[in-house]
């Protein structure tokens, strides 16, 4: 019963928050609402006994991701009210709604579950984080490592893209200009060395 109450409560909250995120024209509201929504989602994780996931959700999303977005917002100076041109808003809602309705139609049906056997069964006696770790570093070792590579890629990408070197485009410069630029830059460094 408690579960149900909690589910409906958080479900409502999440939906409201995300709707605000999607519909508001205030970027700040959107950001805040999304952060709230993320936190409410972690509540589901806790309800469902995925403690580790809940923690990660709060740390990664509400911590890291939201911080990044907040930083981005400041950078882009979008705190003020946004003017977004709306083209065909009805189509958007219809499509979204239709997608929801259609999937819900199917998803409402009970799932025939005779043949499902858990590959990595949850053992209530073991703590969630420990169990997760166990699975993560055996079965999902490779994906885990690959995820690390992915994060590395993302990092490099972020650094490279946001770096100063991107400010001048060699692609658009004629060869002579590049040569000139190089000459001056080497001069600068030489001067610096002096």
């Amino acid at each position: 019963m408690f579960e149900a109450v909690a589910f409906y409560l958080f479900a409502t909250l999440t939906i409201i928050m995300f709707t605000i995120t999607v519909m508001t024209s205030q970027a700040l509201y959107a950001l805040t609402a999304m952060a709230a929504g993320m936190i409410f989602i972690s509540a589901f994780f806790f309800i469902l006994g995925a403690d580790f996931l809940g923690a990660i959700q709060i740390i990664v999303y509400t911590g890291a991701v939201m911080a990044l977005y907040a930083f981005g917002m400041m950078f882009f100076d979008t705190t003020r009210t946004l003017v977004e041109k709306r083209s065909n808003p009805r189509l958007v809602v219809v499509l979204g709604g239709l997608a929801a309705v259609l999937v819900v139609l199917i998803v409402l049906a009970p799932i025939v579950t005779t043949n499902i056997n858990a590959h990595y069964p949850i053992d209530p006696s073991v703590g969630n984080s420990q169990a997760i770790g166990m699975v993560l570093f055996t079965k999902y070792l490779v994906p885990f490592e690959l995820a690390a590579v992915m994060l590395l890629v993302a990092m490099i990408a972020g650094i490279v893209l946001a770096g100063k070197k991107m400010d001048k485009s060699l692609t658009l410069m004629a060869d002579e200009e590049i040569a000139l630029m190089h000459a001056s830059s080497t001069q600068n460094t030489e001067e610096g060395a002096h």
Partner: protein
Amino acid sequence: MEIYLYIALFAPLVGSLFAGLFGASPKTVITGIVTSGLLFTSFISSAILLSFVMSGHTVHVEMMTWMAAGDLYIPFGFVVDQVSVTMMMVVSIVSTVVHIYSIGYMDHDKGFNRFFSYLSAFVFSMMVLVMSDNFLGLFIGWEGVGLCSWLLIGFWYHKESATWAANEAFIMNRIADLAMLIGIFMMYWSLGSLQYDVVFANIGNIPVEVVTWIGIFLFIGAMGKSAQFPLHTWLADAMEGPTPVSALIHAATMVTAGVYLVVRANPIYDLIPEVGLFIASLGAFVAMFAATMALVNRDMKRIIAYSTLSQLGYMFVAAGLGAYWVALFHLMAHAFFKALLFLGAGNVMHAMHDELDPFKMGGLKKSMKWTWILMTLASVALAGIYPLAGFFSKDLILEVAFVEQHYILYTVLLLTAGLTAFYSFRLVALIFHGNERHLEHGIHPHEAYNFVLFAMAPLGILAVIAGMAFKTPYYEMVTQLLPAIEYHIHNHTVFWIMTIGTQLFVILAIAYAYKKYAKAVKVDEKVESGFFYQLLYNQYFIPKIYDEVFSKPYLKLSKLAWKEIDLKIVDATVDGIANVIYRTGEKTHTMQDGNLSSMLRWMVIGLVVLLVLAVAFTAGYNVVNLRAM
């Protein structure tokens, strides 16, 4: 004897090629002499062959294979038998004369060499036509003479009317040739061969309907070449060619090829007398029909052409009635006197600076005595006055009709004989008698070259004696091959009444012609504006009808086919398909409007569409499953 055969056959070809070598260069008399000489050689060879054949032999050679495919085997085979040797003689004599004549006639023409090349080529084709031992070989000659006729009618190619006439002749002949080809196809598929001997030997073994069709198709072929109604219009127009050409091709030889075909194919026509009767009736009709047109025409050459047409009708009557030897005999006799007539006309034309209207001539007998004599001779022969050639051949046809008890045909032919006499002497009278009307036009005529007249002399002699002298030996020879039926009216009284009656009738017609035209020419406005006169003068309006009914609509239809059907339907469909595809691209590629939002929307739309399909399918699936339960 084979060597003579080859000489007779190929001498003209050699001449043609020789002359052709000089085709583009200015006049060189040598070409005329050489070709004439070669033709004379050919004539000599033919004569030797004639004597050989007269002794009861035939020559049959197979030079080489021409076509062989499947079961079809067609060689270049030549046969000299009683029929072909007759034709060879006629052809070689007339052509030799015409060649020599032409040296004079074409004296001032730029295309002198070309002319002799064509003319000799014609003789070669004609020789192939008559000497071939199979139907397809005959067809070679058949088409070959058509080609030469085209070349020679259109010889003065800068004249619009000449080239038009040439094309008309060729195309009309082609229509008939198609029928002939069909006949040949039928023959091949029912008999397996096209060799005369095989075909004639087996023709009796196949169903009579097939034989009938073969006969009909072959005859349609003959109709084209021999200008029978309704394919006759080209012959008169063909007079645009040089006069020697008219003499050789359009009087003596080529146009008689149709008759030759029927004579040659006599075993076929013997089996189908109904078709023969049709041929005869058509022949009689044409004889009359052409003669009427000749009555009022004002073009010297056309008059003679119509007379040729008329005489061809006679020949067909004979051939159709089974009197093949008679047809062939008339063919021969007619060749001589008609060629002579044309050559005479040529002399007149030359003298009159190519004036053709006899009403603008007159009294030429003074200045052109020999021509006058020769032409009168030829006309008398044509009219069938005893003892000239025409009497023996043409009156024989009347007798045939009578004996075969086709009295209507007989009557028609008899009337026609009168008409023939009338228009022939109308011409002679207008040209040679009466006032010298041409003086009004400032023309001073002169007689042709002596050697020209000399060349014509043999024809003149033949026109006189051919009937009398040759009839018996000819009959004896030719009936070895052709059905030997003697046409005698057994009742002497009837015979004499008929003969004398005919003669009188003809003489009366001549006299009337002289009376009407020999002195002064009165143009009777009333008659000339009359319906019949106009009808005849306009050749029964047939050329006009053809033009309106066939030529013009064909051109219109062709333009329609091209501009409307080909371009606007067939091609437009193809381009249309391509355009539809391209337009679709142009119209729809804007869905890629470069806006990220719409790109994302497209993705979602895709998703939703798939979802709709999925849900629909699931629903359907469940319904089916529930029903099954």
